[in-house]
Each structure stands twice: as C-alpha cells, then as structure tokens.
C-alpha cells in the first residue's frame, strides 16, 4: 500500500486566465477539465511530475456562498494564501524565460546560502518561490 498527494488546489480569480498562465507560461499541461453546471473541476500537471495535479478553482457557488467567495477572492488578491514552491534546475534561466513571457516577478534571482531563488505571482496573486534544486 502506498499513499501520496494526488491533487492540491489553488484559488484563482479566473480559471481561463489561470489555465493560460500555468500552461503557456509555466509549462504545465491540462490534466482534467470537467464542467458541471457552473462548477468546473480544472487541474493541471507538470510533465516532470505527473503524479501531482494542481487544481485551479474559482471560489463561488455551488461550493461557496457569496460572502465566503468574496472573502476568498480578497485573501488571494492580497497575497495572503500560503506560499508555493516551484523547484527548477536553473533558476536564472527559468527567470529569463518566464520574465520574457510576462510573468510578474516579485523577486529577481538571488543567491543566498549557496542556493538561487526568485519569487513570482500568478495573475490571481498566489505567491510562488522558485528554488534551484540542489544537484
């Protein structure tokens, strides 16, 4: 028997916008995109890590009432969601590539404690740290 994390969800302000960002700018691909009424189960996965799906969910009905959805949208937009970490082989190269396609960086690549890291946000406000994996 084995256990692993199959899917982790993010709240996004617009699923089409998020899909375009994660697929076109970060190199993810669509895993599942299923609609049921106004509910849309949308997950992406990274080609190098097919076992994990990243869910891109929009707060709102039928899962959330109006007030809750508004609160969640506000929390995401002011960057208060927990940090996300993307491991890359070469942080500076990834920065150049992503910066060129318009990813909003909050921190340029910086070397500290012998490791290079950078910071960026998705269009909704979710904050990512991009860390060079130790080889």
């Amino acid at each position: 028997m084995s256990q692993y994390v199959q899917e982790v969800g993010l709240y996004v302000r617009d699923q089409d916008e998020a899909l375009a960002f994660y697929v076109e700018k970060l190199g993810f691909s669509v895993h599942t995109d299923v609609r049921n009424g106004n509910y849309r189960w949308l997950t992406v996965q990274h080609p190098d890590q097919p076992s994990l799906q990243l869910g891109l969910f929009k707060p709102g009905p039928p899962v959330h009432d109006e007030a809750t959805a508004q609160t969640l949208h506000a929390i995401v937009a002011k960057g208060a969601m927990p940090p996300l970490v993307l491991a890359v082989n070469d942080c500076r190269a990834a920065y150049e590539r992503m910066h060129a396609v318009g990813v909003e960086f909050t921190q340029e690549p910086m070397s500290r404690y012998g490791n290079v890291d950078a910071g960026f946000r998705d269009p909704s406000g979710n904050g990512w740290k991009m860390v060079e994996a130790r080889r």
Partner: protein
Amino acid sequence: MSAPLIRIPSISVESSSAMSVDSASQDPELLRRLLRAKDRMDAASHEDWPVQRLARVSRLSEAHFARSFKQAFGVPPHRYLLTRRIERATALLRDTERLITEIAFDTGWKSLGTFGRIFRDVTGASPGEIRAQTRPETHELGRVPACFVSAARRPDLTTAVSEKRRRQATAINGSEQKEVA
C-alpha cells in the same frame, strides 16, 4: 535560515481586527493592485517609497491608495515599509560584522539618528543592544556541531518533567501520610 527575531508590537498589531472585516469587502481587483505596491516595497525596502510612487504602481490616486492600503493590510504604507527595513537591519546586525552606520544607510535611512530612534521605537532596544543580544549566541553556537546546537536549544523538558513528577509524588505521599495519620 532563521527568521529575524523581532518584536513589532507598536506597528503590526494595530487595528487588525477592525480591518479584517473591512478588507474582505474590498474589490479583489483593487487588492491585487495594492499587493503589487506591497511586493515592490518588499523587493526594495531600502529605496524611497513616497506615496505617489506607490500609487503609480497600483494605478490609483494617492489618497485612494493610502486609504485602501491601510484597509487591506492593516498598516499605512510608510509604516509597513519601516517594519521591513527594521526587519532587514536586525538580520544584518545579527548576521554580519558591518558597522551600524553602514547598515542604517543600506536599509534606507538618511540619518543614523532617525534609524536609531525608529529602531528603538519598534524593537524596544537600540541597534547596538540588539546586536549584543543576538550575536554572541549565533557566534558561539557556530563552533558547536549542529546536533549539539539543536540539543542546546531544546526546551529543558527532562528537568521540568522530573521535577514536576517529584513534586507530585511528594504531594501524594504527603496526603497519604496525612490520611494514614
């Protein structure tokens, strides 16, 4: 990587309870733009961030920016900037050998006097005191193998627990003796 040990009671706590209710009602699109200004301060807290510069980042009028920022993040923008500068200065005091004057200028202050005064207001101690408090510890511990450092920093539970047990035992024995008597 350890977070700087810093107390910022006078700055970060203010009116957070009232604000949390209000900020949930702010337009997410506005909050996203305010976040951009906050990110810019985080990325370069040593730079000057007058309200007009921040307002431009968020594409808002100055008055609207200042009001909305405080509503969203609980503190006015300039005060948020001060906390970031103090946080950075504290880390530099602890982790480097640099002169306090250099640290003051590098973290964005124009005068050593202002730096010292605000530093004391925020942390409750002078930069020199903070350096003295935090540095001998890291300095000395740097020479100790890591496993012993963690052991040294571990809460002193063994003593406390055994002490507690002994006290409880004495108390129980005491009461039993009383009952017997």
